[in-house]
């Protein structure tokens, strides 16, 4: 925080015109599209999947108590699937971001550091 006062007080934002410039670039539009293109549908999907599980646990007792193998019933399998999908979405999100979002973000951040005089970046 070399060029900031000790406590930046009122606003952390810089109001630097460079932000507006970066905001209007085609790369940034693509970055936002790629990020939201995964995060928003994935959120809707896992919320719906989880609520389906909760609702079925409440009101579909016959189905949920069907035995699958031994003492393992549908309810337990459904619950374990929630763990599996959570791990899977977390993994897929990490991969999607590393492949499609991080490279653009690094490029824009580098441009900010270059044009801004090299301070205030995430990697000083």
């Amino acid at each position, binding site marked *: 925080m070399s060029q900031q006062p000790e*406590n930046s007080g009122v606003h952390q934002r810089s109001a630097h015109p460079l932000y507006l410039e970066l905001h209007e670039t085609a790369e940034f539009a693509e970055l936002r599209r790629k990020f939201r293109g995964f995060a928003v549908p994935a959120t809707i999907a896992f919320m719906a999947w989880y609520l389906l599980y909760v609702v079925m646990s409440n009101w579909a007792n016959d189905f949920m108590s069907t035995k699958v193998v031994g003492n393992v019933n549908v309810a337990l399998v459904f619950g374990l699937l929630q763990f599996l999908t959570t791990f899977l979405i977390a993994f897929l999100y990490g991969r999607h971001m590393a492949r499609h979002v991080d490279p653009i973000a690094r490029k*824009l951040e580098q441009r900010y550091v270059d044009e801004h005089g090299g301070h205030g970046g995430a990697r000083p």
Partner: protein
Amino acid sequence: MSSETLATVLFLAVVAVTIGITFWASRQTKGAADYYAGGRSFSGFQNGLAISGDYMSAASFLGISGAIALTGYDGFLYSIGFLVAWLVALLLVAELLRNSGRYTMADQLAFRMRQRPVRTAAATSTVVVSIFYLLAQMVGAGALVTLLLGVEGTWAIRGTIVAVGLLMIFYVVVGGMKGTTWVQIVKAVLLMSGTILITVLVLAEFNFNLSELLGAAADNSGKGTAFLEPGLTYATTTLKIDFISLALALVLGTAGLPHILIRFYTVPTAKDARTSVNWAITLIGAFYLMSLVLGFGAAAMLDTGEGSDVADSAGNLASPLLAEAVGGGEGTAGGAILLAFIAAVAFATILAVVAGLTLTSASSVAHDLYANVWKKGQVTEKQEVGVARIAAFGIGGVAIVLSIFAQSLNIAFLVALAFAVAASANLPSLLYNLFWSRFNTRGATWAIYGGLITCVVLVVSSPAVSGDPTAMFPESDWSWFPLKNPGIISIPAGFLFGWLGTITSREPEADAAYPELEVRSLTGAGAEAAVHH
């Protein structure tokens, strides 16, 4: 040596190690970024461990396996919400917050709003959520530690609360975020190793056959196959809707818990924030899967009927007693060692969680209320950190006193309330701020106060507080809201208030600052950097 003596020795070992860590951390703490955010220099894996240590409270360590031991499948159903919730934090909050915030939750909102009203609102909900959560932990700690150490009486409970409170104040005042984080990391490692050990020993009793374990649990519970199916706890329509309400608060509340949010500031970059949440999901998920084994194991191997130790402790003793049983049973050396070990893990768990909560409240009081609202930013880092330390004393002291007087309080509803406020007041304002350019100061304050007040009013009017034999005031009845969990009403209300406040006011400055927030949160350009000593 009895298991109580052994447990006392291990408790003291935990205390000695954590005090050592705290002194070490205090020497590494120089400026505000060190004190509030651990210098932003923890790795993704370290922070993942610390997040798990912060999140898995005694309520989930002992509570979930206990709930499974007593109510079977419904306890498991309850644990899943706590895990799925992390996807909200991962996909929508963690990275963007790391890039656009600084020390507190309010920093993120204050980025493009009028400082004083927004910081006052965010600090209010931060302190309210943290105090509810802190009370739940400390009230539980008193009862639990005395139970595990085998001491009895009101004064033993009070003494324990004071001791836990003083340790927590010490960690936070002396060690700041660095000390607190390392305490949480140590706790997470202890918790995971203890849980893995007991899980393997339980599975070995049932030839590593899950179906055999489930069958034995169903038989021994006396409830038959119904024990393996949903519905034992949530039997009536009101209870079913109440459970949906709870599930919503759990899933949406986690990403709005201030003590979780500030953990994302302790890593150098947004990518590390992502890595840390992925580690947290792995550890927390593995932990809840093992809780399933522990819970059904306790149901299969212990007496969980009316009047048993497990039932009398509302399930909290299920894991420790199970550890004793798989170690060889009562009176054996193996049983005593494992029981003492699990008791020490529970103790470390309580310490790590209460320290995180105290630090969060103290940071918000010092950084938001003192430095920015009261002094309008005209303070030095040194003064601000000094105030944070004093605030930690104050909040810790208040928590100790409240916990002593709140001994008879039903703690489950305090935790549920903390999650409900986080989901109804904090999450709407955070998400609107990150994703809606039109969002403004009035929207933020209305979302926070609206969500908070709706939550509190509904809970006060619910059967958790009056008009029910298990209520806080069982003798009186002023309840009119049928659900114990307000989430199903208060979460949409929080979003609605935020929207309404926004569209009824104009704030061109907030709109104009959105592109900078968006660029910074998505690219990390200009984000707070790690501190290099």
